[in-house]
């Protein structure tokens, strides 16, 4: 592949890709997302390819291995286009039947979705309850893309936003568009990305860096990995556009070391983008230079914290810094460094392509666009969900999630992993919104949403979460290093029936001091789950103290 020298060459190349593809030729997309992979979707994909080979069907049928489709509960997932026919829990033994039906334009009835209550069947993606209440702006392309092939991304319009930014917009115009879109950081903070970009852009020193935070340490959050593994070029395109606006010539993708497929796809995406002239010197003849390097976390939660992550890229232990020095001004090697989460970057291309006005038409008053949610816990339909901001939690939990497993009732909804919070089931009509959820005490965080059933012991949940954080603390600040084990000690006693009077007061005290005295969000918010429990589930805690909380 010769390097593309200009926007016109890219568009010509895209036209060639599209003209070589027959939209009527059926394509069988086999999901290789983390959950489907765990259910051995690789064997299913191999069976399709073997059958294709054996029956010499290569020109009548395409088989594509793709990133996560979303409905992880029912994996391995297979989607057949045209028509987006969804087959669930597909096994290698089903392959011959699917191929035969596809060639005849028919549907394998026994493998489509069937409502567990009514028995009603749903064949096409837009009819399946799990999908039909979603708005899949970021994830929707996944079944159409083999993440190892940049051409698949180009075929769905990929890199056209980069072309627009480089050829029709000034750096300031790109920045303004992102600011007007009010794109808020998807990693947990909800801070406006545009303001952050502007700070880095205006910081006097050079060079400047841009970073994709794909660490995703939040327990039960798996959408960023799905996004980056399933469509790495979308994230990369967002990053290059951001680098252009900010004036950065070097970027880093920081992600997990423990997912071989993720590493393979991102590495390959960087190589292909470079080959095509979308990375490197003089991108598409615009005069803009940008390189991107891949970095790995090495298995500790705090390395997802922005300043700790930057220390890690420098090759140092990931210890956070005080926040009065902003990384946007002084980050990697003390240079201005703009860090955004995977999902935040993935939103950038569509904002540039379709405009801020379109973007702000989606979502709630102060939270715009869609949000990826990892739906799990005691839910019927676990998976990755994308809905407009402002969607009621009830839609997520019941219409999409199908409610609580095993016919149990919902007790609590937990957001934001170990530093999030739990709210009781009667707040189920609250809208998904950065500020609203924070006020309720269950900030969205990165977007891990768990349903907890009636059997859940809320004291045990708080103990479990603290146990996780105690192991993940970097140990730099005493309040975090020492305060959390003390809280854990008390909670462990309480779960073992050894609670004693004064425990709850001590927990409240420790929670406050640890929060006030720690440098980074890990320590600061370590007691947030506990605080939410005290707010909504205090009687359960009081019941663990002999004589109730009044006893002295």
């Amino acid at each position, binding site marked *: 592949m010769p390097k593309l020298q200009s926007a016109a060459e890219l568009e010509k190349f895209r036209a060639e890709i599209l003209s070589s593809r027959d939209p009527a030729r059926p394509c069988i997309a086999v999901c290789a997302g983390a*959950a489907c*992979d*765990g259910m051995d979707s690789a064997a299913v994909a191999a069976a399709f390819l073997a059958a294709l080979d054996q029956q010499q069907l290569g020109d009548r049928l395409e088989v594509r291995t793709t990133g996560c489709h979303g409905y992880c509960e029912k994996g391995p997932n297979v989607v057949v286009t045209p028509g987006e026919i969804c087959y669930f829990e597909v096994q290698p033994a089903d392959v011959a039947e699917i191929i035969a039906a596809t060639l005849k334009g028919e549907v394998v009835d026994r493998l489509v979705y069937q409502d567990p209550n009514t028995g009603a069947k749903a064949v096409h993606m837009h009819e399946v309850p799990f999908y039909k209440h979603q708005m899949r702006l970021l994830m929707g392309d996944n079944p159409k893309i083999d993440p190892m092939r940049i051409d698949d991304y180009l075929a769905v319009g990929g890199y056209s936003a980069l072309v627009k930014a480089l050829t029709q917009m000034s750096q300031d115009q790109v920045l303004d568009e992102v600011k007007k879109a009010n794109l808020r950081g998807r990693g947990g903070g909800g801070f406006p990305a545009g303001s952050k970009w502007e700070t880095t852009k205006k910081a006097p020193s050079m060079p400047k860096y841009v970073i994709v935070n794909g660490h995703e*340490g939040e*327990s039960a959050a*798996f959408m960023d990995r799905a996004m980056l593994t399933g469509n790495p070029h979308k994230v990369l395109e967002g990053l290059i556009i951001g680098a252009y606006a900010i004036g950065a010539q070097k970027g880093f993708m920081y992600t997990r070391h423990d997912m071989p497929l993720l590493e393979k796809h991102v590495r390959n995406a960087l190589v292909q983008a470079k080959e095509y002239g979308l990375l490197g010197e003089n991108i598409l003849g615009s005069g803009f230079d940008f390189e991107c390097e891949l970095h790995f976390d090495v298995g500790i939660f705090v390395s997802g914290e922005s300043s700790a992550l930057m220390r890690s890229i420098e090759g140092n232990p990931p210890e956070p810094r005080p926040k009065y020095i902003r990384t946007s001004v002084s980050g990697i090697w003390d240079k201005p460094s703009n860090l955004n989460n995977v999902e935040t970057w993935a939103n950038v291309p569509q904002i540039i392509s379709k405009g801020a006005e379109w973007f702000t038409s989606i979502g709630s008053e102060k939270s715009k666009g869609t949000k990826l949610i990892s739906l*799990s816990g*005691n839910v019927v339909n676990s998976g990755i969900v994308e809905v407009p901001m402002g969607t009621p939690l009830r839609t997520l939990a019941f219409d999409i999630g199908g409610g609580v497993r095993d016919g149990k009732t919902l007790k609590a909804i937990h957001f934001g992993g170990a530093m999030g919070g739990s709210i009781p089931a009667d707040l189920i009509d609250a809208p998904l919104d950065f500020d609203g959820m924070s006020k309720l005490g269950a900030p969205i965080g990165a977007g891990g949403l*768990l349903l907890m059933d009636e059997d859940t012991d809320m004291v045990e949940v708080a103990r*479990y979460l603290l146990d996780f954080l105690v192991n993940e603390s970097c140990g730099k600040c005493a309040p975090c290093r020492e305060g959390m084990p003390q809280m854990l000690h008390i909670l462990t006693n309480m779960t073992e029936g050894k609670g004693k009077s004064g425990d709850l007061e001590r927990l409240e005290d420790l929670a406050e001091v640890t929060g006030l005295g720690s440098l980074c969000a890990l320590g600061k918010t370590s007691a947030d789950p506990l605080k939410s429990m005290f707010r909504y589930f205090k009687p359960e805690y009081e019941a663990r103290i002999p004589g109730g909380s009044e006893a002295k």
Partner: protein
Amino acid sequence: MTDNSIDGIIEKYRGQPGSLIHALVEIQHQNRWLPRAVMHRVADALEVPFAQVMQIASFYKAFSLTPKGRHEVHVCTGMTCHLRGAPKLQARVEELTGLKDGETDADSRFTFETGACLGSCSIGPELIVDGKHYGRMTPEKVADVLKRYE
């Protein structure tokens, strides 16, 4: 792994102190643990103090300072796996292998570790052996899986 390939990794990063983590990760991936002598060679080649190599190697969970067993057995203790029964699964693995989190048996057959979150929450609780996922595991099925690994 032969010493040659460790040398190759070290040579690739000679004189680049900023690449310490890259070098250690590559050695860990290939050799599955970091012998002390190798860390000394890394320190010399990358021109960083040995203490700094130790700081990184002992801090991050991905590095092992002791040899690992032939098979790595992993139970995900992430939140969903926890809610869906990971503690019972872990207890069963501990009972069958006689190992606690982080330990390796005397025959070097298994190293047992817990960790979170591996991102396959929808098929939790999970047992992972040498990178192969066994989703929706129950304590009853553990013995059958472990039998396959000698």
